């Protein structure tokens, strides 16, 4: 058997991950054509590369179909209930930084914190006859955060992309999304309120459910020595 290492199959996240491993003497290369999802791991024994969509890596880790995987800590916490019982973070990789935040229109100067948002949500419901809408794809994280803060009378509407535009498009009153520089929020006339809900970065995770033979344990331990984690 071998250790299966899941890595995002495209884009910046893949390139940065290859660089991170490369800098530690573990060389990952794509094989075949650019379009073929196959690759090779050199510098350690017993590690097999699995290229996957970043969004599917949490699920594969939780199910134990891969032993290690690189993805954002935000998607792990969003997608896997009680993730800490199934997946363990081994090392933050120092890139892919993003903060999950809640934002409202800049003209809402009466909303300074979540307590204000709660009061506004209550008034909004009475004025408009429906609950204040927050557009997001991070349903679980946002709901948990708002519940802890005691915010009620809102509803989440699903938005898988271009979330900052939903307010101007009148499909939501507020948004919850990840941001790294805040430039998109600013361009869409939105401001952040409350604390950062989650500080995410690309992280190497280990599955706690995948089976490991004694030989695999040896491979894993060698890999961790090599990576100094």
């Amino acid at each position: 058997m071998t250790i299966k290492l899941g890595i995002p199959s495209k884009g910046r996240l893949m390139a940065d991950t290859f660089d991170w491993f490369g800098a530690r003497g573990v060389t990952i290369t794509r094989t075949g054509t650019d379009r073929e999802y196959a690759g090779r791991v050199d510098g350690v024994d017993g590690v097999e590369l699995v290229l996957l969509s970043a969004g599917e890596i949490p699920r594969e880790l939780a199910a134990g179909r891969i032993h290690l995987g690189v993805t954002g800590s935000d998607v792990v916490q969003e997608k896997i209930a009680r993730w800490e019982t199934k997946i363990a973070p081994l090392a933050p990789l120092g890139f892919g930084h993003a903060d999950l935040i809640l934002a409202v229109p800049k003209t809402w100067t009466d909303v300074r914190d979540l307590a204000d948002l709660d009061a506004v949500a209550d008034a909004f419901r009475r004025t408009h006859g429906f609950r204040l809408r927050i557009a997001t794809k991070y349903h679980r994280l946002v709901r948990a955060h708002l519940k802890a803060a005691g915010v009620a009378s809102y509803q989440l509407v699903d938005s898988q992309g271009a979330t900052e535009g939903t307010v101007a498009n009148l499909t939501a009153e507020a948004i919850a999304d990840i941001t790294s520089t805040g430039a998109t929020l600013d361009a869409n006339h939105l401001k952040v309120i409350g604390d950062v809900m989650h500080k995410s970065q690309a992280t190497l995770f280990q599955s706690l459910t995948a089976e490991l033979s004694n030989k695999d344990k040896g491979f894993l331990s060698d890999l961790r020595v090599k990576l100094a984690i």
Partner: protein
Amino acid sequence: MTVKSDIRAEANRLRAAFEARGAETFEPQILQPAGALLNLYGEEIRARAFVTQDPLRGEMMLRPDFTVPLVQAHIDATRAETRYTYAGEIFRRQEDDDTRPTEYMQVGFEIIGHAPGPDAEISADAEVFATIAEALAGLPVTGTIGDFNVLTTAILGLDTPRRRKDALLRHLWRPTRFKALLDRFSRPAPPVPAPADLHIPHVGLRSPIEIETRLALLAEEAETPPLKSVEVDRLMALMAIRSTAPAAVDDIKDIAGGDEDIVDAARGVEARLDALAEKNIDPAALRFEASYGLTALEYYTGFVFGFSAAGVPTVATGGRYDLLTATLSGGRSIPAVGGVIRPDAALALKAAS
């Protein structure tokens, strides 16, 4: 572990006992339209109920309780006072604790649409409590009661504007937020923010007028004196009451000081204890907790109760839910009180004793 057929048999036995007490059987669909439930509970229900999609009917929910569909059916049929019973599975999503079941049986007894007024309320409250207690006779359970009327009376009696009282009442079910609001209202309000610069484009459905209105409200807040600490302390003391029922009535009266409204609320608890005594339930054997039921689904508004025992889930819970019937009927007053038993817990207790 008790087998499902035994639980079902126990549920049917309990339902038959409630039918013998004059209740008619209600059998709702397992799949309920999600709209009414979402409107009632908001986003929090999504974390607690299973939502699914029907291509033609839209969002549906596996029923998280019987009460909401029952009240809707009662309203749709424009019934007068009716006693209902039901037995069946309810479904609760568990996001944090996989030891809690996602489906279990409930058997209920509910009185909907009884006559208005304190006497009819006391009588219906006592009838539901006694009927559930009778069904659990012989089991080593402890009955606990509470009465939201005590806390809401204390909140409405605060020397502060109505909007602050409404905010507190709205969050009575969220203890952390409630405490944060009390703290906020106990300090001088922060300075009022300025309106946005005119060159910042306004986006979104919430209009500039709504923002102006709230800024004016915040200005009013800034002028509002903080809550008096003696009143806050009294409210906290009332919330903390946990005692045997007769002693709790004395505690409420003591804490009330001279406040006639709170003393009246204590008399309401006393009147319920008297009504229970007439039904051969010993008030001295009951516990009273002023905050009982505060973390449940937020529809109880007056008398609440539960029966519990060590080592099993809460065996039965219930209470008055006049606000729920008012919300679902578009503001009509339909007095209602009910309770449910978990037959699995009842059976587990029987097996243990």
